[in-house]
Protein backbone atom coordinates (compact mmCIF):
# COMPACT_ATOMS: atom_id res chain seq x y z
CA UNK A 1 0.00 0.00 0.00
CA UNK A 2 2.69 2.46 1.11
CA UNK A 3 5.00 1.29 -1.70
CA UNK A 4 2.26 1.92 -4.21
CA UNK A 5 1.72 5.38 -2.79
CA UNK A 6 5.44 6.15 -2.98
CA UNK A 7 5.52 4.86 -6.56
CA UNK A 8 2.52 7.05 -7.41
CA UNK A 9 4.15 10.10 -5.87
CA UNK A 10 7.39 9.40 -7.69
CA UNK A 11 5.64 9.19 -11.03
CA UNK A 12 3.80 12.48 -10.90
CA UNK A 13 5.69 15.67 -11.45
CA UNK A 14 3.29 17.96 -9.65
CA UNK A 15 2.70 16.69 -6.14
CA UNK A 16 6.33 16.35 -5.15
CA UNK A 17 7.31 16.57 -1.46
CA UNK A 18 8.25 20.25 -1.84
CA UNK A 19 4.85 21.13 -3.33
CA UNK A 20 3.06 19.14 -0.65
CA UNK A 21 5.12 21.05 1.87
CA UNK A 22 3.84 24.33 0.40
CA UNK A 23 0.28 23.13 0.86
CA UNK A 24 1.13 22.09 4.41
CA UNK A 25 2.55 25.53 5.27
CA UNK A 26 -0.58 27.05 3.73
CA UNK A 27 -2.75 24.80 5.86
CA UNK A 28 -0.90 25.87 9.00
CA UNK A 29 -1.47 29.54 8.15
CA UNK A 30 -5.16 29.01 7.36
CA UNK A 31 -5.70 27.16 10.64
CA UNK A 32 -3.84 29.86 12.58
CA UNK A 33 -5.84 32.67 11.02
CA UNK A 34 -9.16 30.89 11.49
CA UNK A 35 -8.46 29.83 15.07
CA UNK A 36 -7.14 33.19 16.24
CA UNK A 37 -9.86 35.25 14.58
CA UNK A 38 -12.64 33.00 15.86
CA UNK A 39 -11.31 32.94 19.44
CA UNK A 40 -10.58 36.68 19.66
CA UNK A 41 -13.81 37.49 17.80
CA UNK A 42 -15.81 35.40 20.25
CA UNK A 43 -14.39 37.15 23.29
CA UNK A 44 -15.21 40.51 21.71
CA UNK A 45 -18.67 39.36 20.68
CA UNK A 46 -19.89 38.28 24.12
CA UNK A 47 -19.65 41.73 25.79
CA UNK A 48 -20.81 43.40 22.58
CA UNK A 49 -23.90 41.18 22.46
CA UNK A 50 -24.67 41.98 26.10
CA UNK A 51 -24.37 45.71 25.42
CA UNK A 52 -26.45 45.26 22.27
CA UNK A 53 -29.34 44.04 24.45
CA UNK A 54 -28.87 46.91 26.90
CA UNK A 55 -31.85 49.13 27.70
CA UNK A 56 -29.80 52.26 26.97
CA UNK A 57 -30.79 52.90 23.39
CA UNK A 58 -27.71 54.83 22.34
CA UNK A 59 -25.45 52.03 23.60
CA UNK A 60 -27.29 49.29 21.77
CA UNK A 61 -27.62 51.49 18.66
CA UNK A 62 -23.84 51.99 18.55
CA UNK A 63 -23.23 48.24 18.60
CA UNK A 64 -26.00 47.76 16.06
CA UNK A 65 -24.26 50.23 13.74
CA UNK A 66 -20.98 48.31 14.09
CA UNK A 67 -22.59 44.99 13.22
CA UNK A 68 -24.68 46.55 10.43
CA UNK A 69 -21.64 48.04 8.72
CA UNK A 70 -19.46 44.97 9.09
CA UNK A 71 -22.21 42.56 8.02
CA UNK A 72 -23.38 44.77 5.17
CA UNK A 73 -20.07 45.25 3.36
CA UNK A 74 -17.79 42.67 1.76
CA UNK A 75 -14.92 41.34 3.87
CA UNK A 76 -12.60 42.15 0.97
CA UNK A 77 -13.39 45.88 1.31
CA UNK A 78 -12.83 45.70 5.06
CA UNK A 79 -9.49 44.00 4.46
CA UNK A 80 -8.46 46.59 1.85
CA UNK A 81 -9.43 49.42 4.20
CA UNK A 82 -7.25 48.01 6.93
CA UNK A 83 -4.41 46.65 4.79
CA UNK A 84 -4.04 49.60 2.41
CA UNK A 85 -5.82 52.27 4.42
CA UNK A 86 -3.97 52.00 7.70
CA UNK A 87 -0.56 51.39 6.14
CA UNK A 88 -0.85 54.53 3.99
CA UNK A 89 -1.59 56.89 6.87
CA UNK A 90 1.13 59.56 7.02
CA UNK A 91 3.81 58.82 9.54
CA UNK A 92 2.59 55.34 10.46
CA UNK A 93 5.74 53.83 9.00
CA UNK A 94 7.79 55.56 11.71
CA UNK A 95 5.41 54.70 14.53
CA UNK A 96 6.23 51.96 17.06
CA UNK A 97 3.37 49.72 15.87
CA UNK A 98 4.73 49.57 12.31
CA UNK A 99 6.40 46.19 12.88
CA UNK A 100 2.88 44.78 13.38
CA UNK A 101 1.54 46.30 10.18
CA UNK A 102 4.52 45.49 8.00
CA UNK A 103 3.56 41.86 7.84
CA UNK A 104 0.21 41.23 6.10
CA UNK A 105 -0.71 38.75 8.84
CA UNK A 106 -1.82 41.26 11.46
CA UNK A 107 -3.92 43.53 9.20
CA UNK A 108 -5.61 40.36 7.93
CA UNK A 109 -6.20 39.09 11.44
CA UNK A 110 -7.65 42.45 12.49
CA UNK A 111 -10.09 42.47 9.54
CA UNK A 112 -11.16 38.87 10.23
CA UNK A 113 -11.56 39.49 13.97
CA UNK A 114 -13.78 42.54 13.43
CA UNK A 115 -15.84 40.73 10.80
CA UNK A 116 -16.46 37.59 12.82
CA UNK A 117 -17.08 39.68 15.95
CA UNK A 118 -19.90 41.47 14.11
CA UNK A 119 -21.57 38.25 12.95
CA UNK A 120 -21.08 36.49 16.30
CA UNK A 121 -22.50 39.47 18.18
CA UNK A 122 -25.77 39.15 16.26
CA UNK A 123 -25.85 35.36 16.75
CA UNK A 124 -25.31 35.63 20.50
CA UNK A 125 -27.74 38.54 20.79
CA UNK A 126 -30.35 36.39 19.04
CA UNK A 127 -30.07 33.72 21.68
CA UNK A 128 -29.76 36.21 24.56
CA UNK A 129 -33.12 37.82 23.77
CA UNK A 130 -34.90 34.48 23.46
CA UNK A 131 -33.97 33.42 26.99
CA UNK A 132 -37.02 32.17 28.86
CA UNK A 133 -38.44 35.06 30.95
CA UNK A 134 -39.52 32.62 33.65
CA UNK A 135 -35.94 31.52 34.27
CA UNK A 136 -34.84 35.12 34.80
CA UNK A 137 -37.78 35.84 37.12
CA UNK A 138 -37.01 32.70 39.11
CA UNK A 139 -33.39 33.81 39.48
CA UNK A 140 -34.53 37.26 40.61
CA UNK A 141 -36.85 35.66 43.13
CA UNK A 142 -33.84 33.78 44.51
CA UNK A 143 -32.27 37.17 45.16
CA UNK A 144 -29.54 37.01 42.52
CA UNK A 145 -28.23 40.32 41.21
CA UNK A 146 -27.90 41.20 37.49
CA UNK A 147 -24.35 39.84 37.10
CA UNK A 148 -25.18 36.62 38.86
CA UNK A 149 -28.22 36.09 36.66
CA UNK A 150 -26.16 36.84 33.59
CA UNK A 151 -23.35 34.48 34.57
CA UNK A 152 -25.40 31.66 36.01
CA UNK A 153 -28.63 31.67 33.98
CA UNK A 154 -28.62 33.74 30.81
CA UNK A 155 -25.16 33.13 29.33
CA UNK A 156 -24.96 29.33 29.72
CA UNK A 157 -28.32 28.78 28.11
CA UNK A 158 -27.67 31.40 25.43
CA UNK A 159 -24.36 29.75 24.46
CA UNK A 160 -26.11 26.42 24.20
CA UNK A 161 -28.76 27.74 21.88
CA UNK A 162 -26.22 29.72 19.84
CA UNK A 163 -24.05 26.67 19.11
CA UNK A 164 -25.63 25.48 15.83
CA UNK A 165 -25.56 28.97 14.26
CA UNK A 166 -22.10 29.60 15.68
CA UNK A 167 -20.67 26.45 14.10
CA UNK A 168 -21.82 27.80 10.72
CA UNK A 169 -20.03 31.05 11.49
CA UNK A 170 -16.79 29.21 12.24
CA UNK A 171 -16.97 27.32 8.93
CA UNK A 172 -17.78 30.62 7.22
CA UNK A 173 -14.65 32.11 8.81
CA UNK A 174 -12.53 29.18 7.60
CA UNK A 175 -13.72 29.96 4.08
CA UNK A 176 -13.30 33.70 4.57
CA UNK A 177 -9.61 33.33 5.45
CA UNK A 178 -8.99 32.39 1.80
CA UNK A 179 -9.16 36.14 1.13
CA UNK A 180 -5.81 36.45 2.91
CA UNK A 181 -4.23 35.13 -0.28
CA UNK A 182 -5.24 38.39 -1.99
CA UNK A 183 -2.85 40.40 0.17
CA UNK A 184 0.25 38.28 -0.41
CA UNK A 185 -0.22 35.76 2.40
CA UNK A 186 0.32 32.16 1.29
CA UNK A 187 -2.51 30.22 2.89
CA UNK A 188 -4.09 27.12 1.31
CA UNK A 189 -5.61 29.21 -1.48
CA UNK A 190 -2.33 31.06 -1.99
CA UNK A 191 -0.43 27.77 -2.21
CA UNK A 192 -3.00 26.50 -4.71
CA UNK A 193 -2.60 29.63 -6.79
CA UNK A 194 1.20 29.35 -6.77
CA UNK A 195 1.03 25.74 -7.88
CA UNK A 196 -1.50 26.67 -10.58
CA UNK A 197 0.69 29.41 -11.98
CA UNK A 198 3.78 27.22 -11.98
CA UNK A 199 2.22 24.26 -13.77
CA UNK A 200 -0.73 25.96 -15.50
CA UNK A 201 -2.85 23.16 -14.06
CA UNK A 202 -5.93 24.76 -12.46
CA UNK A 203 -7.88 21.58 -11.83
CA UNK A 204 -5.18 19.71 -9.92
CA UNK A 205 -4.00 22.78 -7.97
CA UNK A 206 -7.39 24.10 -6.86
CA UNK A 207 -9.15 20.76 -6.37
CA UNK A 208 -6.32 19.72 -4.04
CA UNK A 209 -6.71 23.01 -2.15
CA UNK A 210 -10.48 22.55 -2.03
CA UNK A 211 -9.97 19.04 -0.64
CA UNK A 212 -7.93 20.40 2.26
CA UNK A 213 -10.68 22.93 3.06
CA UNK A 214 -13.28 20.15 2.96
CA UNK A 215 -11.26 18.10 5.47
CA UNK A 216 -10.93 21.13 7.77
CA UNK A 217 -14.69 21.68 7.45
CA UNK A 218 -15.38 18.12 8.54
CA UNK A 219 -13.00 18.55 11.48
CA UNK A 220 -14.77 21.73 12.65
CA UNK A 221 -18.11 20.04 12.16
CA UNK A 222 -17.02 17.07 14.28
CA UNK A 223 -15.78 19.34 17.09
CA UNK A 224 -19.09 21.21 17.20
CA UNK A 225 -21.09 17.99 17.17
CA UNK A 226 -19.24 16.90 20.30
CA UNK A 227 -19.75 20.32 21.88
CA UNK A 228 -23.47 20.19 21.10
CA UNK A 229 -23.73 16.73 22.54
CA UNK A 230 -22.08 17.95 25.75
CA UNK A 231 -24.19 21.11 25.89
CA UNK A 232 -27.47 19.27 25.47
CA UNK A 233 -26.68 16.18 27.54
CA UNK A 234 -29.25 17.23 30.16
CA UNK A 235 -31.92 16.75 27.52
CA UNK A 236 -30.77 13.33 26.38
Amino acid at each position, binding site marked *: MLDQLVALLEQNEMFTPSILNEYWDGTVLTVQLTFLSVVIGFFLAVPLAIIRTSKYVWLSRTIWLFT*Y*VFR*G*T*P*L*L*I*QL*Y*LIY*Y*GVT*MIDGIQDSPIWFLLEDAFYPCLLAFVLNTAAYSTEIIRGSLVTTDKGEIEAAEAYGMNYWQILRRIILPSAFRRALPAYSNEVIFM*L*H*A*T*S*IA*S*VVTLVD*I*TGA*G*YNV*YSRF*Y*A*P*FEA*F*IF*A*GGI*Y*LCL*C*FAIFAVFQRLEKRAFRHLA
Partner: protein
Amino acid sequence: MLDLQGYGPSIFNGAILTVKLAIFSLIIAVLLGLITAVARYSGGKISSAIALAYTNLVRGVPDLVLMMLIYFGLQVGLNNFSEWLYELHETYAINAFYIEQGWLTLSAFYEDGMYITIDEFSAGVLTIGFIFGAYMGETFRGALLSVDKGQLEAATAYGMSDWQVFRRVMFPQMMRFALPGIGNNWLVLVKTTALVSVIGLSDMVKLAKEAAMTTYEPFLFFIPVAFVYLAITTVSEIVLKYLENHFSKGVEGH
Protein backbone atom coordinates in the same frame (compact mmCIF):
# COMPACT_ATOMS: atom_id res chain seq x y z
CA MET B 1 -18.52 67.46 -1.64
CA LEU B 2 -16.76 64.19 -2.27
CA ASP B 3 -13.96 64.69 -4.76
CA LEU B 4 -13.10 61.39 -6.42
CA GLN B 5 -10.31 63.00 -8.47
CA GLY B 6 -11.83 62.05 -11.80
CA TYR B 7 -12.34 58.40 -10.88
CA GLY B 8 -16.04 58.94 -10.07
CA PRO B 9 -17.53 57.90 -13.44
CA SER B 10 -15.43 54.76 -13.76
CA ILE B 11 -16.27 53.63 -10.23
CA PHE B 12 -19.94 54.34 -10.95
CA ASN B 13 -19.69 52.06 -13.99
CA GLY B 14 -18.07 49.49 -11.73
CA ALA B 15 -21.05 49.75 -9.38
CA ILE B 16 -23.43 49.11 -12.27
CA LEU B 17 -21.35 46.10 -13.27
CA THR B 18 -21.55 44.80 -9.69
CA VAL B 19 -25.34 45.09 -9.67
CA LYS B 20 -25.68 43.47 -13.11
CA LEU B 21 -23.33 40.68 -12.12
CA ALA B 22 -25.29 40.05 -8.92
CA ILE B 23 -28.67 39.98 -10.66
CA PHE B 24 -27.61 37.68 -13.51
CA SER B 25 -25.85 35.37 -11.03
CA LEU B 26 -28.98 35.29 -8.90
CA ILE B 27 -31.05 34.16 -11.89
CA ILE B 28 -28.61 31.33 -12.66
CA ALA B 29 -28.43 30.40 -8.97
CA VAL B 30 -32.23 30.26 -8.60
CA LEU B 31 -32.58 28.08 -11.70
CA LEU B 32 -29.80 25.73 -10.59
CA GLY B 33 -31.21 25.71 -7.07
CA LEU B 34 -34.70 24.75 -8.28
CA ILE B 35 -33.24 21.97 -10.44
CA THR B 36 -31.14 20.56 -7.60
CA ALA B 37 -34.00 20.81 -5.11
CA VAL B 38 -36.39 19.00 -7.46
CA ALA B 39 -33.70 16.43 -8.25
CA ARG B 40 -33.29 15.65 -4.56
CA TYR B 41 -37.02 15.80 -3.83
CA SER B 42 -38.36 13.63 -6.59
CA GLY B 43 -35.42 12.56 -8.72
CA GLY B 44 -33.98 9.13 -9.34
CA LYS B 45 -31.07 7.68 -7.43
CA ILE B 46 -28.38 9.03 -9.74
CA SER B 47 -29.76 12.55 -10.12
CA SER B 48 -30.30 12.96 -6.39
CA ALA B 49 -26.77 11.67 -5.71
CA ILE B 50 -25.37 14.24 -8.16
CA ALA B 51 -27.46 16.98 -6.54
CA LEU B 52 -26.28 15.93 -3.07
CA ALA B 53 -22.63 15.91 -4.11
CA TYR B 54 -23.03 19.30 -5.79
CA THR B 55 -24.63 21.03 -2.82
CA ASN B 56 -22.27 19.58 -0.23
CA LEU B 57 -18.98 19.88 -2.11
CA VAL B 58 -19.63 23.45 -3.23
CA ARG B 59 -20.69 24.54 0.26
CA GLY B 60 -17.58 22.98 1.81
CA VAL B 61 -15.04 24.90 -0.27
CA PRO B 62 -14.34 28.67 -0.11
CA ASP B 63 -15.92 30.81 -2.83
CA LEU B 64 -12.54 32.18 -3.85
CA VAL B 65 -11.06 28.72 -4.47
CA LEU B 66 -14.11 27.70 -6.51
CA MET B 67 -13.92 30.94 -8.41
CA MET B 68 -10.29 30.39 -9.31
CA LEU B 69 -10.97 26.74 -10.14
CA ILE B 70 -13.88 27.52 -12.45
CA TYR B 71 -12.45 30.68 -13.94
CA PHE B 72 -8.94 29.40 -14.65
CA GLY B 73 -10.27 25.91 -15.32
CA LEU B 74 -12.72 27.29 -17.85
CA GLN B 75 -9.84 28.91 -19.71
CA VAL B 76 -7.82 25.71 -19.85
CA GLY B 77 -10.93 23.73 -20.72
CA LEU B 78 -11.74 26.13 -23.54
CA ASN B 79 -8.17 25.88 -24.82
CA ASN B 80 -8.51 22.13 -25.00
CA PHE B 81 -11.87 22.61 -26.70
CA SER B 82 -10.17 24.96 -29.16
CA GLU B 83 -7.66 22.31 -30.03
CA TRP B 84 -10.46 19.89 -30.66
CA LEU B 85 -12.23 22.46 -32.83
CA TYR B 86 -8.99 23.09 -34.65
CA GLU B 87 -8.87 19.44 -35.58
CA LEU B 88 -12.43 19.79 -36.85
CA HIS B 89 -11.28 22.80 -38.83
CA GLU B 90 -8.39 20.85 -40.27
CA THR B 91 -10.58 17.91 -41.22
CA TYR B 92 -13.81 19.61 -42.27
CA ALA B 93 -12.68 23.16 -43.04
CA ILE B 94 -15.16 24.86 -40.66
CA ASN B 95 -13.93 28.43 -40.41
CA ALA B 96 -15.68 30.33 -37.70
CA PHE B 97 -17.75 29.68 -34.68
CA TYR B 98 -19.65 32.36 -32.90
CA ILE B 99 -22.47 32.32 -30.39
CA GLU B 100 -24.00 35.47 -29.09
CA GLN B 101 -26.86 35.12 -26.64
CA GLY B 102 -27.16 38.61 -25.25
CA TRP B 103 -24.98 38.28 -22.18
CA LEU B 104 -22.90 35.30 -23.22
CA THR B 105 -20.36 35.71 -25.96
CA LEU B 106 -18.44 32.66 -27.04
CA SER B 107 -16.29 33.10 -30.04
CA ALA B 108 -13.58 31.33 -31.96
CA PHE B 109 -11.55 32.60 -34.85
CA TYR B 110 -9.31 30.73 -37.15
CA GLU B 111 -7.18 33.42 -38.64
CA ASP B 112 -4.16 34.08 -36.44
CA GLY B 113 -3.94 30.77 -34.69
CA MET B 114 -6.70 29.33 -32.63
CA TYR B 115 -8.44 30.60 -29.60
CA ILE B 116 -11.82 30.63 -27.97
CA THR B 117 -12.63 33.26 -25.44
CA ILE B 118 -15.42 33.52 -22.96
CA ASP B 119 -15.70 37.08 -21.78
CA GLU B 120 -14.89 37.73 -18.12
CA PHE B 121 -18.36 38.94 -17.26
CA SER B 122 -20.02 35.72 -18.45
CA ALA B 123 -17.39 33.67 -16.64
CA GLY B 124 -18.08 35.62 -13.45
CA VAL B 125 -21.85 35.17 -13.79
CA LEU B 126 -21.51 31.44 -14.44
CA THR B 127 -19.11 31.00 -11.53
CA ILE B 128 -21.13 32.88 -8.93
CA GLY B 129 -24.35 31.35 -10.25
CA PHE B 130 -22.83 27.88 -9.93
CA ILE B 131 -21.66 28.51 -6.36
CA PHE B 132 -24.92 29.98 -5.10
CA GLY B 133 -26.99 27.38 -6.95
CA ALA B 134 -25.79 24.98 -4.25
CA TYR B 135 -26.95 27.27 -1.43
CA MET B 136 -30.26 27.96 -3.20
CA GLY B 137 -30.71 24.21 -3.68
CA GLU B 138 -30.68 23.69 0.09
CA THR B 139 -33.08 26.60 0.61
CA PHE B 140 -35.56 25.33 -1.96
CA ARG B 141 -35.32 21.76 -0.70
CA GLY B 142 -36.30 22.89 2.78
CA ALA B 143 -39.15 24.91 1.31
CA LEU B 144 -40.42 22.03 -0.82
CA LEU B 145 -40.47 19.78 2.23
CA SER B 146 -42.48 22.36 4.20
CA VAL B 147 -45.44 22.39 1.81
CA ASP B 148 -48.29 20.28 3.16
CA LYS B 149 -48.48 17.00 1.22
CA GLY B 150 -52.24 16.78 1.75
CA GLN B 151 -52.78 19.96 -0.25
CA LEU B 152 -50.85 18.56 -3.19
CA GLU B 153 -52.90 15.37 -3.04
CA ALA B 154 -56.10 17.40 -2.83
CA ALA B 155 -55.07 19.41 -5.89
CA THR B 156 -54.33 16.22 -7.82
CA ALA B 157 -57.70 14.85 -6.73
CA TYR B 158 -59.34 17.95 -8.24
CA GLY B 159 -57.91 16.80 -11.56
CA MET B 160 -55.11 19.36 -11.90
CA SER B 161 -52.12 18.38 -13.97
CA ASP B 162 -48.66 18.17 -12.37
CA TRP B 163 -47.77 21.58 -13.76
CA GLN B 164 -51.02 23.12 -12.46
CA VAL B 165 -50.38 21.65 -9.01
CA PHE B 166 -46.90 23.15 -9.04
CA ARG B 167 -48.02 26.57 -10.25
CA ARG B 168 -51.19 26.98 -8.18
CA VAL B 169 -50.44 25.14 -4.94
CA MET B 170 -46.79 24.24 -4.58
CA PHE B 171 -44.99 27.34 -5.89
CA PRO B 172 -46.88 30.11 -4.00
CA GLN B 173 -46.48 28.32 -0.68
CA MET B 174 -42.94 27.21 -1.34
CA MET B 175 -41.96 30.82 -2.02
CA ARG B 176 -43.24 31.85 1.39
CA PHE B 177 -40.99 29.30 3.08
CA ALA B 178 -38.06 29.94 0.76
CA LEU B 179 -38.03 33.76 0.81
CA PRO B 180 -36.04 34.33 4.02
CA GLY B 181 -33.42 31.86 2.77
CA ILE B 182 -33.34 33.41 -0.71
CA GLY B 183 -32.96 36.82 0.90
CA ASN B 184 -30.00 35.68 2.99
CA ASN B 185 -28.36 34.04 0.00
CA TRP B 186 -28.85 37.20 -2.03
CA LEU B 187 -27.19 39.36 0.62
CA VAL B 188 -24.22 36.97 0.77
CA LEU B 189 -24.11 36.82 -3.04
CA VAL B 190 -23.89 40.60 -3.38
CA LYS B 191 -20.90 40.63 -1.06
CA THR B 192 -19.31 37.69 -2.86
CA THR B 193 -19.34 39.60 -6.14
CA ALA B 194 -16.50 41.67 -4.64
CA LEU B 195 -14.26 38.64 -5.15
CA VAL B 196 -14.50 38.84 -8.95
CA SER B 197 -12.07 41.76 -8.72
CA VAL B 198 -9.45 39.20 -7.71
CA ILE B 199 -9.86 37.22 -10.94
CA GLY B 200 -9.66 40.34 -13.07
CA LEU B 201 -13.17 41.65 -13.61
CA SER B 202 -13.43 45.44 -13.38
CA ASP B 203 -16.08 45.77 -10.71
CA MET B 204 -16.13 48.72 -8.35
CA VAL B 205 -13.76 47.07 -5.88
CA LYS B 206 -11.06 46.64 -8.50
CA LEU B 207 -11.51 50.17 -9.85
CA ALA B 208 -11.46 51.63 -6.35
CA LYS B 209 -8.31 49.68 -5.57
CA GLU B 210 -6.58 50.96 -8.70
CA ALA B 211 -7.62 54.52 -7.90
CA ALA B 212 -6.44 54.13 -4.30
CA MET B 213 -3.06 52.79 -5.37
CA THR B 214 -2.44 55.61 -7.85
CA THR B 215 -3.56 58.46 -5.61
CA TYR B 216 -2.44 57.04 -2.24
CA GLU B 217 -5.91 57.86 -0.91
CA PRO B 218 -7.33 54.47 0.16
CA PHE B 219 -10.05 55.82 2.46
CA LEU B 220 -11.33 58.22 -0.19
CA PHE B 221 -12.18 55.34 -2.51
CA PHE B 222 -12.89 52.33 -0.32
CA ILE B 223 -15.32 54.08 2.01
CA PRO B 224 -17.72 55.24 -0.75
CA VAL B 225 -17.61 51.73 -2.24
CA ALA B 226 -18.44 50.28 1.18
CA PHE B 227 -21.41 52.67 1.31
CA VAL B 228 -22.65 51.46 -2.07
CA TYR B 229 -22.66 47.90 -0.72
CA LEU B 230 -24.46 49.09 2.42
CA ALA B 231 -27.04 50.85 0.24
CA ILE B 232 -27.61 47.70 -1.84
CA THR B 233 -28.00 45.68 1.37
CA THR B 234 -30.43 48.18 2.86
CA VAL B 235 -32.60 48.41 -0.26
CA SER B 236 -32.60 44.61 -0.56
CA GLU B 237 -33.77 44.24 3.02
CA ILE B 238 -36.67 46.63 2.44
CA VAL B 239 -37.72 44.83 -0.77
CA LEU B 240 -37.46 41.46 0.98
CA LYS B 241 -39.67 42.62 3.83
CA TYR B 242 -42.29 43.72 1.27
CA LEU B 243 -42.06 40.41 -0.60
CA GLU B 244 -42.34 38.41 2.60
CA ASN B 245 -45.52 40.27 3.50
CA HIS B 246 -46.84 39.73 -0.03
CA PHE B 247 -46.31 35.97 0.04
CA SER B 248 -47.69 35.68 3.58
CA LYS B 249 -51.01 37.35 2.76
CA GLY B 250 -52.97 34.12 3.13
CA VAL B 251 -51.51 33.32 6.55
CA GLU B 252 -52.98 34.40 9.86
CA GLY B 253 -51.15 37.08 11.77
CA HIS B 254 -50.04 39.03 8.70
